């Protein structure tokens, strides 16, 4: 393969990979802290996309500025979901296994509810708008400007959140709760507060990803599930509960998908993702960075 073509394909893979990474970090934060595997993550992402779309079509608000709305709105939604459903479930569950399964089932319920509320509000029509749809040159390759913006913002949030976890005191608290819930409770961490804020943050990340995706792709109430699946593939690749793993895993999955579907056929994109997914689960269920 000629180098220029290879570069183009890897760059477009990395661009999607950055978005997958942000999806996966939100999911993984919730799983790592609370053992909630949020299968409705993609539906929350879809809500973010519709918020941006609605603000743009009603008052022409710039999609980048709409992040200031979709993020906080989804954060508040996340706080309420945690308070209404998961707080009780986490406190009442007698074992981690039972909590994992029950929260998965509740998230399925959420998926149905959110998707169909969106169908009632926005109907099943495909929506979309044109934003920054001109090509730009970058390092010798040509990319649509909107993809480039979406990728940059996604990476900004992903890396920013990773650095926050790694270096700030609040981030240390979150990691402490991830490692040992009871231990951190003993030293005075308010675990419940950490849980609810982080659940909200995870949901807010889904909303932001949705806003970014709406700049590039068409949106429908059914758009969520494939992104949830991509996110799950990434967190299983990077390791459940491992935030850095999700960041790296997202970029890897983006690359594998773009080169894989180039080498075989674009129709096989989902088949390739699922093959990678099944292979990782069977060979290294703890992820590439797992211990």
């Amino acid at each position, binding site marked *: 393969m000629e180098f220029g073509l290879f570069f183009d394909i890897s760059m477009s893979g990395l661009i999607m990979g950055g978005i997958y990474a942000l999806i996966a970090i939100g999911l993984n934060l919730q799983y790592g802290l609370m053992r909630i*595997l949020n299968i409705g993550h993609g539906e929350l992402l879809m809500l973010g996309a519709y918020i941006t779309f609605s603000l743009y079509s009603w008052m022409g608000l710039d999609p980048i500025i709409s992040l200031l709305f979709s993020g906080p709105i989804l954060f508040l939604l996340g706080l309420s979901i945690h308070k209404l*459903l998961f707080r*009780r*479930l986490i406190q*009442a*569950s*007698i074992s981690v*296994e*039972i909590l*994992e*399964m*029950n929260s*998965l*089932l*509740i998230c*399925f*319920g*959420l*998926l*149905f*509810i959110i*998707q*169909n*509320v969106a*169908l*009632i509000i926005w109907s099943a029509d495909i929506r979309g708008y044109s934003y920054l749809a001109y090509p730009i040159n970058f390092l010798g390759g040509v990319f649509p400007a909107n993809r480039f913006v979406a990728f940059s913002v996604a990476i900004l949030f992903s890396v920013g959140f990773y650095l926050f976890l790694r270096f700030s005191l609040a981030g240390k608290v979150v990691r402490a709760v991830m490692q040992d819930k009871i231990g951190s409770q003993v030293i005075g961490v308010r675990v419940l507060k950490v849980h609810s804020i982080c659940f909200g943050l995870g949901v807010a990340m889904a909303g932001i990803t949705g806003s970014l995706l709406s700049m590039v792709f068409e949106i429908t109430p059914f758009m969520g*599930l494939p992104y949830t*699946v991509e996110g*799950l593939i990434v967190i*299983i690749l990077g390791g459940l509960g491992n935030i850095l793993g999700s960041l790296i895993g997202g970029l890897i999955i983006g690359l594998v998908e773009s080169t894989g579907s180039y080498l075989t056929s674009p*129709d*096989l994109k*989902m*088949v390739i993702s*699922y*093959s990678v*997914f*099944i292979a990782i*689960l*069977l060979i290294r*269920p703890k992820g590439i960075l797992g211990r």
Partner: protein
Amino acid sequence: MRTVLIFIWTITAVALILFPFFASVYITSLFIAILMYIALAESWSIFSGYTRYISIGSAAFFGMGAYTMAILSSKLPLPIVIVIATVVNFVLAVPMGFITLRLRGPYFAILTFGLAEFMRYIVLWWEMKITGTRGRIIMPVEQEAVYYSILVISAIVFLTAYIIKVSRFGLALQSIGQDEERAETLGVSTTFFKVAAFALSAALMGAVGASITPRWTYVDPYIAFNPLISFQPIIMALIGGVGNIYGPIVGAVFLGLLSEVLLIRVPYYFMIMLGTILIIIVLFIPGGLTSLIGKRSQSSPSPILPATPV
């Protein structure tokens, strides 16, 4: 008590057999749908109900059954195709079970979901590239034939569930659901029982898929491998109550009737209600509806997923 039960079952069986002679076409088709839900929910709980390995991949086996019927319906008689679909699914599910059942909890659940989607994309790709079609037309069959085949399959599924429940096989599955390590230590060959139950449940789902397909007259991968077919049996079994052979029936009848009334008229509100019911059941009624009626929970195994300390 025993004679009363036998009496009730005989009456029910006779009524169900004579049913299409008296009922209207609409009522018969409603019964076909409810019998299908019963068979699916009961086959799901044969494996997942006892072992607590939650499979979200029923659509994979249902879809394989549906496709077996779509391919063979013009060549072979209906009952033979259903038997072939059952065997195909059993044979397919044994290696799949060996591979997937090494994982537990959410890993297993997501893997089964991934497998169902994977198979849908494979079949879709195969049909478009190799066969050059997107969907297939199926030879129409009389409604009575569909009714009786689904009735026979539901009866077989129910009998299987009953036999498993009262046999050592069911006891082994329950022990896996309660504590797999301990079961293994006590000499239960957990892998054998898990794979056997998984394949049995898959084979029965394949039979359901094959026997319901002639009613559609058209099938494509999106219909046959619809993820809703993976979700519905779980919700029905949980609503009715798992670990109790009547639970899935109660859930299937309840949700089947509800979806008949609401799904066509207000589909979005129906799905919202479905989600809400699922959440309420998991949070507040972990034993399902049957646990509210009969307080015989001591004799039956503990509810599948108690949300509250027991």
